Every structure is written in structure tokens, then in C-alpha cells.
């Protein structure tokens, strides 16, 4: 070790007071689940964190009933002002317990503490704070005066941003006056369980938030439950399709945040230092396990080689390892299943003529890891230019003209995000106009804010989360 190397700086887990086993949080109480309990393991060590209950149909029924009762008796009749005050309380407690939540999230998900500490958890608190303020201002969300809540919202969230996705779902739903039953992903249930404790600390009335753990069957039972009025799902496009089908012909409202294959377009006049950081942030943030990741780099042909050289140089400095280490840039892949998917897709990309280069970093012996990888020579028709990899793998394509960049960027069934790097403001605006994507970042990437609507075009889903549009998803026009 030289003086330029980084000494280990792991965040202590002593701040966590975890239980060995977590039940279902229904009607303000913990109860066992009817299904077979399952373990959540830390992806960086493969060690078990705790056991979690699996909700069966009976549990789903009980959770929906608890939510219905709370909606009818407490949360529905409550003034917007008081609902808002509960949400403000939650926001404050989230801030107070931020370190604990960041450690728990990194442990359970495998993402670097730098991200949970500086991105996930602060955004979670901000999301509740933002939505809290909406609760008594619903007349101004754009649906006319006196808009009404739907009732009981069923919400299913993914494993890539467990607590952040919980906040995107629960905060607007509650502000609008709905009660919720939320199911976290089976590989990352931990922070949702801690959130139950936060609801109790905030004195939130029983049944307003119900948290049930389990796998796909639990989610399937939840969205199909006849007493659910609104379904919100974030996850894969395949599951999104299934849910849309299951809800066809019902009166349930649906919003979907699904997959993506975001194009990150770099023009030859881009500020290259920033662009390189933006490319890295776009695809290696959260190990690329981000639906809006900039997974397709579209680089103008004349600067391709220069960009690749600098990108590889930068990638070589990324520190991969212990997610709880404050110096870690790239953490663990969330599960073996995900690691297998990434590996399979990269192999396909190489088999189809792509040239893969991985950052020269040592992978820990235990846990699930994939080195940051860039694949050049990718064709628009290649598997890795079309399918969402959901991992730290960047596919590189080139273009010559803005029209070609736009055509290639839009050549996907997805339409969630895109990035543009150029110093020419007029060109940035013109290109942004033509991109069929719900979020366009210009000279930045992967920025999120509760005031800023987020969501996709085409097969990336429908509905928005964040801002006025995000509130509308949880309301119907007043009478």
C-alpha cells in the first residue's frame, strides 16, 4: 500500500438494531405471514441479514381490508392539512435516522454507502417533505377543485432503489388521501421494515400504510385484489404488461414505471471532462441497475476514439468493493439471478461482434460482482443495444449527424430517459425536442427531484412520479 492508496473506511453497522425476523406490517401491527418465510442476504457477502415473512392471499386480503378501514374511518375524512403534518413528521424522522437507513440500504441492496448516504436517503426525506406540502393544496394539481383520492392503492416496488421507490409511491399516495398496501422486492425488504417503525414513531394512524413482503405471487394477488382502486408498479416491462392485462376491464387506475434503454448522446463540442463523468454516472451509478441508465452511449464518430480512451482511463480509477466503505464507487450486483442476466447479455454482445473492455479491478471472492464494462463496435440491431441489461455495462454506438443521433436514440421500444452533451444550447434544445423519452438530461445525467416529473414514453410505461403530474396519478377529478 502506497500513500496514494485508499485505506479501508467502512461505515459501522453497529447503528443498526436489526431483528432476526420480520413479519408483515398490517393495520399498524406486526404479524406472521401465511407463506414460507425467506431470507434476505447481503449481496456483497452472501450472508443472511434477516428472515422475512411471505404474505399469502389471506394476508393480502387482511392488508387491503386494513387499508380500506383506515381510508374510510381515518385517512379519508382527515383534513389535508393534518395529512400533510403526518408526512412532514415522517420526512423529519427520515432525516434523523438517515445514517441508519443508508447503512441498512447498502447492506441489503449492495449499493455503495456513498450513494445511499448522498442520493437515496436524502431524496427519500425530500420526497416526503415535498408531498407533505401538497396534501392541503390538491385543488391546484390541475384536476379542478376538490379532487378525490382513489381509495386503496396497491404498490409494488423494485430492488434497485428500495427505500427511494417506497417514498415515490407512499408519499404522493398519502398526500392525496389514499391509504396504501406496499410490497417491497423480495431481495430488498429491509428498509421497508424500518419504514414501518418510522410510521409508528410518527404516530401515523394504523392501516394507513401496510407493508407486506413476499415474491411475485404476493404482488400478483395484491394487484388483482378486487378492493384495490389504484395500482402503481415499478419494475420490468414484462411484469408491467401482465399487470396491465390483469387490470383490463376493471375500474382500477394504473401507473407503470418500467424498463429503459437510455441513449446518452455526446456531440463533438461537448465539454468532455463533464461528459466523461456524465457517462460514468449514467451507467455505473448503482452498478447500472437503474431503469433510466444511460446504457447506450451515442458518441459522434470523430471523437469516438478520444472519448473511449478517456472513458477507460476514468473507469480504471473506479473503486469496486465493500458497499459500506465510504470510498467505494461500485458496489455489488443485487442478486445471483441479476448477475447471471448481465453475464449472459454481455456474452451475447461479444458473440454478436462487440468488443468488451472491463475496468481492471479485483473482484471480491464472496458476493455478486461485475466489473464496469464498456462494449464497443455495437450495432443498432445488437442484443445489447436493444435489451435492458440492468448492470454496469455500456454499449457504444456512433453517429455523424444530429438526425442520425436522434434516429438511433429513438430506435427502441422504450422511452424513459436520454442524455445530451453539447456546449451549443440551441442544438441541445432542438435535439431534446425530438427525443421520445420522458426525462432528458442535458449536460448532466441521473438527476432526480420530487418536484420533477419522472416517467416513460412507449413501453417504458405510463404516468409520472414527482411534481404536479405525480400527484395527479393518485387523484380523480372532483365533482
Amino acid at each position: 500500500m502506497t500513500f496514494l492508496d485508499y485505506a479501508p473506511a467502512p461505515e459501522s453497522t453497529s447503528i443498526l438494531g436489526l431483528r432476526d425476523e420480520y413479519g408483515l406490517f398490517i393495520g399498524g401491527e406486526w404479524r406472521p405471514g401465511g407463506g414460507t418465510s425467506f431470507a434476505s442476504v447481503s449481496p456483497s457477502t452472501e450472508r443472511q441479514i434477516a428472515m422475512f415473512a411471505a404474505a399469502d392471499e389471506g394476508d393480502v386480503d387482511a392488508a387491503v381490508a386494513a387499508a380500506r378501514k383506515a381510508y374510510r374511518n381515518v385517512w379519508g375524512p382527515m383534513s389535508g392539512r393534518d395529512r400533510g403534518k403526518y408526512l412532514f413528521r415522517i420526512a423529519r424522522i427520515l432525516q434523523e435516522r438517515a445514517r441508519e437507513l443508508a447503512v441498512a440500504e447498502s447492506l441489503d441492496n449492495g449499493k455503495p454507502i456513498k450513494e445511499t448516504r448522498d442520493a437515496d436517503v436524502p431524496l427519500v426525506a425530500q420526497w416526503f417533505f415535498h408531498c407533505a406540502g401538497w396534501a392541503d393544496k390538491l385543488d391546484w394539481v390541475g384536476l379542478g377543485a376538490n379532487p378525490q383520492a382513489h381509495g386503496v392503492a396497491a404498490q409494488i416496488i423494485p430492488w434497485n432503489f428500495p427505500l427511494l421507490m417506497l417514498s415515490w409511491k407512499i408519499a404522493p399516495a398519502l398526500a392525496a388521501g389514499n391509504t396504501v398496501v406496499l410490497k417491497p422486492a423480495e431481495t430488498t425488504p429491509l428498509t421497508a421494515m424500518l419504514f414501518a417503525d418510522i410510521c409508528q414513531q410518527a404516530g401515523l394512524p394504523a392501516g394507513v400504510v401496510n407493508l407486506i413482503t413476499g415474491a411475485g405471487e404476493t404482488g400478483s394477488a395484491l394487484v388483482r385484489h378486487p378492493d384495490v382502486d389504484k395500482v402503481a408498479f415499478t419494475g420490468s416491462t414484462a411484469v408491467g404488461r401482465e399487470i396491465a392485462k390483469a387490470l383490463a376491464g376493471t375500474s382500477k387506475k394504473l401507473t407503470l414505471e418500467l424498463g429503459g434503454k437510455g441513449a446518452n448522446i455526446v456531440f463533438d463540442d461537448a465539454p468532455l471532462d463533464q461528459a466523461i463523468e456524465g457517462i460514468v454516472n449514467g451507467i455505473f451509478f448503482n452498478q447500472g441497475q437503474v431503469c433510466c441508465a444511460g446504457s447506450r452511449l451515442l458518441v459522434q464518430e470523430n471523437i469516438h476514439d478520444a472519448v473511449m480512451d478517456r472513458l477507460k482511463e476514468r473507469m480504471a480509477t473506479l473503486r469496486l468493493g465493500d458497499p459500506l466503505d465510504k470510498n467505494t464507487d461500485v458496489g455489488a450486483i443485487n442478486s445471483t439471478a441479476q448477475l447471471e442476466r448481465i453475464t449472459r447479455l454481455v456474452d451475447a454482445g461479444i458473440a454478436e461482434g462487440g468488443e468488451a473492455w472491463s475496468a481492471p479491478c479485483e473482484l471480491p471472492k464472496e458476493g455478486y460482482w461485475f466489473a464496469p464494462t464498456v462494449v464497443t463496435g455495437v450495432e443498432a440491431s445488437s442484443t445489447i443495444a436493444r435489451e435492458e441489461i440492468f448492470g454496469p455495462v455500456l454499449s457504444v454506438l456512433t453517429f455523424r449527424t444530429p438526425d442520425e443521433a436522434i434516429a438511433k436514440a429513438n430506435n427502441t421500444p422504450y422511452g424513459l430517459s436520454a442524455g445530451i452533451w453539447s456546449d451549443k444550447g440551441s442544438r441541445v434544445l432542438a435535439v431534446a425536442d425530438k427525443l421520445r423519452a420522458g426525462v432528458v438530461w442535458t449536460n448532466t445525467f441521473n438527476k432526480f427531484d420530487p418536484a420533477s416529473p419522472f416517467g416513460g414514453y412507449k413501453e417504458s410505461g405510463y404516468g409520472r412520479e414527482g411534481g404536479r403530474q405525480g400527484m395527479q396519478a393518485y387523484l380523480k377529478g372532483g365533482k
Partner: protein
Amino acid sequence: MATSKTSKTATATKAAATEATTARPAGSRAAARAASARLDVPKTYKLFIGGAFPRSESGRVTEVTDARGRFVANVAKASRKDAREAVRAARKAQPGWAGATAYNRGQVLYRVAEVLEGRKAQFVDELVQTSGLTAARAAKQVEAAIDLWVWHAGWTDKIAAIGGNANAVAGPYFNISVPEPTGVVAIIAPQSEGLLGLTSVVAPALVMGNSVVVVPGSAPLSAISLAEVLATSDMPGGVVNVLTGDAAELAPWLASHADVNALDLTGAGSLDWISLEQSAADTLKRVIRPEPGIAPETPQRILALTETKTIWHTKSRL
């Protein structure tokens, strides 16, 4: 050219109509003009695809009769292939229409109202003939439809102001959300209210720059006459495509078509609309469920066929 005739009325009427066909010119059109010595020139009602008026590639027609079962016209009966041609034309025309300025789109929609006003008598005539409405009631309906085009014309440069927003994000960014057209919208138009019903679903889709493939409901003659108005209103060819025919036959192809972005089932209440919605889920189309669905003549109706795009522009640090 016509090879098959399918009457929408009862069997008895059908028989009568067949008889009437052989005994031309005993049709109502001729009867109505009986006082005139001149023999009138009836119109051929064809499809409207890509700005042109083709017959159905299938060669099929549907016979339209008046309230008393007398022959009025043979209307083209669109096929699956016609539907695909219509979607292709709509896709081709959509970027240009969306790329026109809001002021320009507003003027074109207003122009539709202007041209409709001039041809009001024709629309009233067709409605009276085929729906059995009195002339006064038909006129009211046509006038309401014209006014609805004017209402929508006025929205093109305002929807962004009420459907979009500047977002106060916690960082050095200029952040703005704007509504943009969803793309190609397939519409099953309401089964009632003829031109008015048709307008209530087509006009809102056009406001922000979607292109449309519409299967009209009960008023195929009004739909094709409207197409003639659109064709002479500076509306680019392909922005609106009209497929007269059997909605139950055409809707499944439109619902499953991968290049259709949204499916408006407002008039599909009597069809198996649940399987249409299920089919639309395969490509995650935006779906407007059958009436009451989303109320007509509301900004929500226009916004339902838009996507919110949020753009983050970096501000430099000074």
C-alpha cells in the same frame, strides 16, 4: 366493383333494400329530389388514408339505408390491410404535424370549422337521411360539432401552459416539463351523435400533434364527408385516417398493432373491449376506456393523449 353488401338493418329491411337496388332510382336521394328535373350525382363514399380516398383493398362495401330502409350509399368496408395502411400513413404524418407550430395547428383546426360551416347543409342532410333526426335537431348537432372544432383550435397554444410546469428542483438546473403528443392514436368513435361524437374524440387527439386512425360509429357518411373537409383544410395528409367498416372487425388489429401508441375505446362499449384493452397491454398502449371514460370537451381529454417530457438543463456556476 362492390361484391358483397351487408345491411345494418333488420332482415326485412335488407330484403326491401335489395329490391330497391334492383329498382333504382327509387332511393331516398332520388325521391328527395323528385321535384327537380335534373338527375343528381350521388357520391361514392370511400376510405380516407394518407390524404387520399381509396376504396377498401378488400373490395367490400356496406350498404347504408335511410330510416325507411331505402338505399342511400355503398360505404367502403375497411379490412385489416386497410387498417395497417392507415397506421403506416398516420405514423408517417405524425412528426410533421407535431412539429408544426401550435399557432399553425390551431389555425388548421379552426380552418376545419370554417370549411364545415360552409358545408353545414350537406352534413345536416346526411344526418337527416341516415339517422332519422329532424332537420332542426340535425342542424343543432352539426353546429355543436363545428363549435367543438373551434374550441379545440383555441387549445393548441395553451395546453402546454396548463399541462406543463417549471420545476423548482434542489440544484443548479433549469427544469421544465412539457406535454408532447403520444404519437399514433387509434380511435373507436362513439356510436351516437354522428359528426359531434366523431369530433369529440378526433379533435382532442389532434390538438397536441397526434395523428389518428379512426373507426367512425353510427355516421359513416358524416365521417367521410368530414374527411373531405379535412382534405381541404390544410391538414396534412395522413394526420387523420378514416376507416369506415365494422368496428368489431377492425378494432383488434388496431389494438394489437405495435406502431399504435394509444387506443381510445370511447365508442367500444358494445364491443368486447376488455380483450381489446388486454391486447393493447402487450405494447403498453395508453388506453381510454369506453364511455364515460374521460369527459369530452375537457383539457384532461387532450392531456390524456400526451406524454410529459421533463428536461433538465444544466446551469453553469458563475
